[in-house]
């Protein structure tokens, strides 16, 4: 902020620019204020409230029995095996699904990039899994894997037709991950396709002329040039996968130990009305997402300014 005295001593033109930029500043603040207020109202404020509530022994069924317990809820959560089992499940799902989405999504992107005909058809088709409600995807796959009404068992050679996919931890997790991968790979493919378009054609031609094999071109030219796009896609998908909830809710409802950390939090708060420990879990979930985000950004040195701000 410049004082009036200072402004007066400055040459006229400068004063006008600073007037203009101040007006611009004011307009901008007015324009962004509603969005910021809304985003903070629904996230920052409830998060602070969760932080506060997590210090209490507080059950909605007995709202008057609220007692301050300090960090006791966190200790309870962190020393509970359930918390660690569900975190392990979540990390496992995140790593496996993102890996498959990346590989399959890249293959799809390569095909779409090469395609000279049927482009509209492919784009339309690929948007359908993206647009389908996750709950519907979960149902579709749950019924597909079902041993009474599904088709998966009869389509896999040498498969026992009565095999119950949801009767065992590993097969239930596999079914959940299939639904997750099916729905989100197209999104990955579209992001990678946009990245693929950034690879300079002349570099590829030069590599070809120099006798580089397809494999060499992929690893030496294409992938390094797509690094930013790949990292952004991985970051976004990984954080999304870490929040996995819908598919588990619909497909197993947490049976066979397939709970995710989001599911555990939901169960504490909404089904058991344990707002105290539920809030502690909410805070822990938030912190673990931060850790995952930070880890990915550091590990792969993602340049976020190259991301979404484009």
């Amino acid at each position, binding site marked *: 902020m410049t004082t009036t005295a200072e402004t007066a001593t400055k040459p006229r033109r400068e004063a006008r620019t600073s007037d203009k930029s101040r007006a611009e500043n004011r307009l901008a603040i007015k*324009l962004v204020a509603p969005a910021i207020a809304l985003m903070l109202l*629904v996230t920052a404020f409830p998060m602070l409230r969760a932080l506060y509530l997590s210090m209490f022994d507080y059950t909605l069924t007995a709202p008057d029995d609220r007692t301050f317990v300090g960090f006791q809820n966190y200790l309870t959560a962190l020393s509970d095996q359930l918390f660690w089992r569900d975190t392990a499940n979540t990390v496992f799902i995140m790593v496996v699904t993102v890996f498959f989405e990346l590989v399959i999504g890249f293959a799809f992107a390569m095909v779409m990039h090469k395609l000279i005909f*049927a482009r509209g058809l492919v784009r339309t088709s690929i948007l359908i899994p993206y647009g389908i409600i996750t709950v519907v995807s979960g149902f579709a796959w749950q019924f597909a894997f079902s041993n009474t009404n599904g088709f998966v068992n009869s389509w896999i050679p040498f498969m026992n037709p009565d095999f119950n996919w949801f009767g065992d931890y590993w097969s239930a997790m596999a079914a959940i991950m299939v639904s997750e991968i099916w729905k989100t790979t197209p999104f990955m493919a579209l992001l990678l396709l946009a990245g693929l378009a950034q690879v300079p054609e002349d570099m590829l031609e030069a590599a070809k002329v120099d006798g580089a094999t397809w494999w060499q071109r992929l690893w030496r030219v294409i992938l390094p040039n797509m690094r930013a796009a790949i990292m952004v896609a991985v970051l976004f998908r990984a954080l999304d996968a870490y929040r996995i909830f819908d598919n588990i809710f619909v497909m197993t409802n947490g049976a066979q130990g397939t709970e995710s950390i989001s599911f555990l939090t939901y169960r504490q708060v909404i089904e058991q009305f344990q707002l105290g420990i539920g809030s502690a879990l909410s805070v822990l979930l938030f912190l673990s997402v931060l850790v995952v985000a930070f880890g990915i950004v550091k590990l792969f040195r993602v340049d976020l300014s190259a991301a979404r701000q484009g």
Partner: protein
Amino acid sequence: MRNDTLSRIGTAVGLILILVWCLLPVAWIISLSFKSQEAVTNGSPGFFPSSGGGAGWQNYVDVVKDDQFRQAIFNSIGICLIATLLSVVIATLTAYAVARLEFKGKKFVLTTALVIAMFPVVSLVGPLFDMWRTLGIYDTWIGLIIPYMSFTLPLAIWTLSAFFREIPWEMEQAAQVDGATAWQAFRRVIVPLAAPGVFTAAILTFFFAWNDFVFGISLTSTERARPIPAALSFFVGDDPFNRPASLLAAGAVVATVPIVLLVLFFQRKIVAGLTAGAVKG
């Protein structure tokens, strides 16, 4: 020469694989919706309805006649449209400021949007559940519209700022030279030019709101405001292993129709919006 043919065959095979990947589960859920409920209860494995196990349109008739289901569709359409409209209006203002104006706090806006896009929504349902009950908006449309707006804002802001950067801004300056204020220049010159981007952002916002499940089940308790994904998951009974599969499939198909229509008509716009700003351009 041989290489060329090989690569062409590879592309064709890839094309078929993509189509199978995308459409097979959709075909499956449609096929399932035509299995009769008796056949499903007795068990009818296989992709297609067995002979004598088909239901014709019966499941669809049952779904459409179901009051709860109709109400849920109505809720979803109403809530998502209102949330989309408001979110896009607010995001347009923000994106204009981000793309066009120099101001302190631009970084803060973008960072906030980024953080919110990655926010674990489940961690909010507890406090929101509590707050909404205190405010008396638990189990109402407005109680869902507010969180839908905040969580679609980041996507809408990014998409719109990416579009806004492509607009020929000299025209805005020309309008200002001709005596228009900054606000007039924004409303009269830029809004019409930005309309396609705004429309794309609206479709993506609608997709997001339509797909939501966490808020839908946590912040509603009756059919008064329950949106379609939540209604589907509660459709019949609480035994997740013995659902009336074919009826649910019919409901799922109905719930998917609006999305498929949007995709069919606006495929190009959606792709452009989804990837806008995802790579350095």
